[in-house]
């Protein structure tokens, strides 16, 4: 970042009193240049891309797992597996919908993150 700005100076160059004023000055200088930085937006978008893929699968895995175990326990061969497969699929789609809407994915986000969609 600021390379020449004396990274480790043991003695303070200026007294503390006017620190607030200098800080305000510096802030006023910087603020218009970077309104809420684009870097953070990219990170949340990438995070969303990596997140959504597994949401769908995880609910399905849990659903099928529960159905399979219930079948084993109650000896009702395929019925609970079938029922919980569909419930799991529904839960997975619900997860994806929630994930997408909670992050507030917009069209431009989706376009930006297409390259990183592998999950």
């Amino acid at each position, binding site marked *: *970042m600021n390379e020449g700005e004396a*990274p*480790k100076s043991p003695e*303070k160059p200026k007294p*503390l009193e006017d*620190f607030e004023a200098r800080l305000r000055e510096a802030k006023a200088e910087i603020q218009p240049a970077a309104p809420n930085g684009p870097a953070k937006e990219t*990170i949340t978008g*990438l*995070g969303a891309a*990596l*997140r959504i*893929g*597994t*949401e769908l*699968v*995880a*609910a399905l*895995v*849990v*659903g099928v797992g*529960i159905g399979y175990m219930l079948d084993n326990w109650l000896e009702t061969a395929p019925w609970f597996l079938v029922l*919980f497969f569909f*419930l*799991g699929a*529904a*839960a*997975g789609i*619900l*997860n994806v919908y*929630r994930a997408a809407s*909670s992050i507030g994915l917009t069209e431009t986000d989706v376009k930006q993150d297409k390259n990183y969609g592998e*999950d």
Partner: protein
Amino acid sequence: MANPLQQFTINTLVPIKIGGIDASLTNSGLFMVLTVAAITVFLTLSMRGRALVPGRWQSMAELSYEFIAGMLRDNVGSEGRRYFPFVFSLFMFILFANLIGLIPYSFTFTSHIIVTFSMAIFVFLGVTVIGIIRHRLRFFTLFLPSGVPMVMAPLLIPIEILSYLSRPVSLSIRLFANMMAGHTMLKVFAGFVVPLGFFGGWAPLGVDVALTAFEFLVAFLQAYVFTILTCLYLNDAIHLH
């Protein structure tokens, strides 16, 4: 060519047996210890100066602190502040584990599903307990969205419960799968470098260089995703969306 999955084998370093339970120190355990040591050294040494105008190291430590503090503030609100120590530890642990795992000849314990699953189930149970303590029985209204006609309830409640139960699974699968896939790919391409000879070997080597950079991104991003989801789940438990 070496087996690309060989890097994930667990080796016992110091055999320890406590009452019939195998509690040996393995390479996985060793790297967990190293990760915790690295975080401790990083945070304590970089904050030793406590300068008003931070240097490079102190700036890095403050940046990581403020990153998680800001994440908690944005996603949970001021009530989330008391869970900061846990969330910060979680983030630093996963981040350092992923980054240390990228050093050649080291071991990435986040590429084992049992490790990620135990972290995820801890988050899941913790969040559920926090929610039940804060809201008592009202916590279970989480499974029935408001304004739903009662006819739909028998269908919607199982779906909501499944969706809730899938949280630890998706948390753990995501981290483990990304780390394992990335490291396997690195190894697969690395295995082509020498067999393809002096002229052909440059292509997989180039791919490996690019993949390494990508893995650094993934290492950070997966720590970030794990942490932000912990924040979101915490928010659900505290505010019952």
